[in-house]
């Protein structure tokens, strides 16, 4: 203060207050601020990417959980479905889905006429574009399981075609329709007109979560349920194999291993395996499990084995960390009262490390659940996973898909309707991952002990 009020003794020095920073200080301070901003910008960009990612997942995938249905009253014409009129199940089964398609189209056409909707579409065949190809199969299944319905008029809720579904969800625009040979603008007018009557409506789509995959032309009836079962069996294999092997390996390395070459070799191997690209594990699975051991291709068992090998390093690393966290005094106390080394580990150290091991295992499983690349090589894509397994053996050995593989399969089909399914599948997959990680975090918070 006092200095500042004194006149400057030096001639060349400007008369400035010490409170006012000089140019150099200002420059340094600006540099400081700028550097700080870079850091904030770095974090902000990262979080921005995260938000964009999540928003695009939710906004593109939410549509998969809704589906457009058409309510029609189909007259199950005996003349077409049961020509001899004797309700013989074998003869009824002979009528293929082609026999049912005209009935459904007629039913929808009647509905349109009934409600007095004006449309340039004058033939019942024109309704084809509105109805999913899977509707005929749906009605045929009902008829075969209950042949007495023939001759009656039954209400059905059938799937609308994927274009109609896309139109109601805003995925299909009117401008796109001009180039589309599957649907015309008149159809869309009809859809608009049918909506107020409640004949066409959009509701929650349980079939997406529980259903099976469908062929390329029927995006509207594809579901992720069967792939979910495939993933479940794979995770079962991973859990059953990697937990005991991983824990046993960690106990050996952490508690018993002498310092020798063999131990060093194991340690180096585990560290390197953790960094091997996942696709290489796929090559291993293909060469060893399928080509050499002739295990069935596309089987969740093989997928589980490959993912086990891939998850083992993760589980071993986290298990070793939690074994290391148990203080030596516990071991010493056990040894002191006469326990053998093995007893001290299995009776005292292992139970104390269990929460940490469990947490690590769940995180390892979550990682395995989202892994796709190795599954491509052992053949879990490229076919339609349509049958749910009917037992443990078939669940392990029958060809099936897995959730990420199913998502990849849909992404490959290059159809916006399937893209929507793929995003929807990602929402479900992320749901599983988030809940697994949350369980892991809760376990850690609740049982973690600080010594």
């Amino acid at each position: 203060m006092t200095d500042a009020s004194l006149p400057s003794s030096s001639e060349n020095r400007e008369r400035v207050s010490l409170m006012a920073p000089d140019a150099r200080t200002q420059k340094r301070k600006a540099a400081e601020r700028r550097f700080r901003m870079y850091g904030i910008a770095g974090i902000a960009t990262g979080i921005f990417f995260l938000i964009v990612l999540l928003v695009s997942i939710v906004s593109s995938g939410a549509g998969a959980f809704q589906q457009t249905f058409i309510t029609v009253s189909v007259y199950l014409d005996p003349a077409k479905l049961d020509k001899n009129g004797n309700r013989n199940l074998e003869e009824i089964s002979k009528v293929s889905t082609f026999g049912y398609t005209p009935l459904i189209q007629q039913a929808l056409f009647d509905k349109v006429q009934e409600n007095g909707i004006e449309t340039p579409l004058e033939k019942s065949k024109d309704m084809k574009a509105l109805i999913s190809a899977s509707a005929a199969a749906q009605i045929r299944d009902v008829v075969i399981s209950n042949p007495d319905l023939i001759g009656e008029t039954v209400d059905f809720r059938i799937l609308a075609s994927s274009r109609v579904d896309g139109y109601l969800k805003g995925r299909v625009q009117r401008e796109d329709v001009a180039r589309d040979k599957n649907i015309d603008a008149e159809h869309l007018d009809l859809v608009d007109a049918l909506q107020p009557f409640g004949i066409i409506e959009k509701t929650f789509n349980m079939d997406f979560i529980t259903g099976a995959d469908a062929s390329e032309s029927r995006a509207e009836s594809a579901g992720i349920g069967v792939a979910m079962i495939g993933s479940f069996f794979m995770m079962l294999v991973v859990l059953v194999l990697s937990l005991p092997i991983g824990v046993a390996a960690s106990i050996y390395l952490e508690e018993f291993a002498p310092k020798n070459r063999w131990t060093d070799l194991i340690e180096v191997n585990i560290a390197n395996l953790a960094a091997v690209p996942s696709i290489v594990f796929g090559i291993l699975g293909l060469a060893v499990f399928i080509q050499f051991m002739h295990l069935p291709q596309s089987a969740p068992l093989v997928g589980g084995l490959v993912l086990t090998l891939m998850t083992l390093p993760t589980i071993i690393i986290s298990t070793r960390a939690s074994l290391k966290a148990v203080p030596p005094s516990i071991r010493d106390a056990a040894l002191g009262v006469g326990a053998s080394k093995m007893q001290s580990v299995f009776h005292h150290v292992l139970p104390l490390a269990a929460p940490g091991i469990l947490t690590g295992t769940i995180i390892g499983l979550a990682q395995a659940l989202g892994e796709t690349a190795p599954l491509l090589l052992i053949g879990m894509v490229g076919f339609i996973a349509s049958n749910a397994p009917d037992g443990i053996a078939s669940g392990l050995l029958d060809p099936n898909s897995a959730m990420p593989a199913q998502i990849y399969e849909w992404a490959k089909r290059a159809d916006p309707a399937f893209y929507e399914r793929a995003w929807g599948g990602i929402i479900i997959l992320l749901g599983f991952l988030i809940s697994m990680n949350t369980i892991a975090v809760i376990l850690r918070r609740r049982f973690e002990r600080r010594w």
Partner: protein
Amino acid sequence: MPVLWLSAVITVLALFGFYFGRRRALQSAGGDSRLLHSLPSYYGSNALMKSVVPAFGLMILWLLAQPLFIENRIAGMIPESEISEGSNVGLVMSEVRRTADGLSNAVAGGFLDEEELQSGGAVLSDLTQRLRDAGQVVTNEISQPILDAAQTYRSMSGTSQLLMTVAVILVALVGAGWGVSESGRDFRARNVVEKGILAILIAAASVAILTTLGIILSLVFNTIEFFSLYPAIEFFTLLEWAPSFSGRGGASSLGIIPLLWGTLYISFVALLVAVPIGLFAAIYLSEYASPRVRGIAKPLLEILAGIPTIVYGLFALLTIGPLLVSVFGKDGLGWMGGGRAVMTAGIAMGIMLIPFVSSLSDDIINAVPQSLRDGSYGLGATRSETIKQVVLPAALPGIVGAILLAASRAIGETMIVVLGAGAAARLSLNPFEAMTTVTAKIVSQLTGDSDFASPEALVAFALGITLFVLTLALNVFALYIVRKYREQYE
């Protein structure tokens, strides 16, 4: 499923062994467990271990060896005439295997009669059709030698299964009996059991070595086979990647250089995105952020690391690609042809690597001793000057290690490039052009309908070994640097 039943039988036998081993030991001590050398359950465990371990070991070995043995015998049966032009024994063998499976399934499904098959009553031409009717996969018309081989295959497999069941149960029985007979008051059961457990632990730890061995062997053998069909020099030096699937060999040019170029280019773009963002985020988190900000921002960034790569792949294909096309595509600058490009995959991969770079660098920056910072502050340096001139130079080797680890991740990444980078191999500098990578080609060469004996499929193993060696070298080098750096401050 006989293996499942066999396992159940072994388990039951072993449990009996446990019970009798324990009882015998207690009896020998007159019911007073204090007179025994070990706790009673150790005597039981001894018998249990001696029946379970050898029995399962034998079963696994048998299951591994059986196909090898049988195939060697069958391969000798197949006459030269059956091995047609461009085919080999392996292909014919898989045909035999398929036929045998088809026959077994058809018999099980009631479409074929076992006795009819044995007596040779089934007419050959008719058989193919009937197998097809039974829903079995039959590719070619079945010929007589193939049918004979398939029948031998079936009967040998059956015999072998039976032998295995008998042998495994016998081993389990003998083991349990041995364990029970050993039980006595002076037998040191605990020591024996603990030795056994230790052996099991060692075996579990060795799985890691077996896995590495499996990877190396499966890569090396198939690569050698590939190089016997395709010249190695061309593979490493040819500037063109154009596999043909119509003709076998010859017509394809399989040069790895365009693939390596695509891989490195995409990884470079990814690092260009990830390194600045990740590094600045790490600096801010470790040097500036308050504990509260750190507690929120760090887990948020790490969510990015927990998202499966298939999600990034789809994000690249459906969000980043179209976005880039709208700016650089036909309607914009006109540099970009389609949504799949080096940039598309590179940006998605960069986003994926941000948390990888940031948390590794964060650890490394935190490991720089506080005394270095205090010294710098004491000389009047500002925070940013301290970071730039003291902390970062001190942490540099570690950060380089972290970047190398991220690079190895980028090189080995598959799903993002399969979905986002395109399928055409190209040597070009334009980052808006579609290129392909080593991993993407491994997937496409091994997931087609091609047979595994053609060079077009086997090349995937050569690509795999290149990838393996490349990532391994990067990792070992990076870990070496990081470890060296850690030692410096410990």
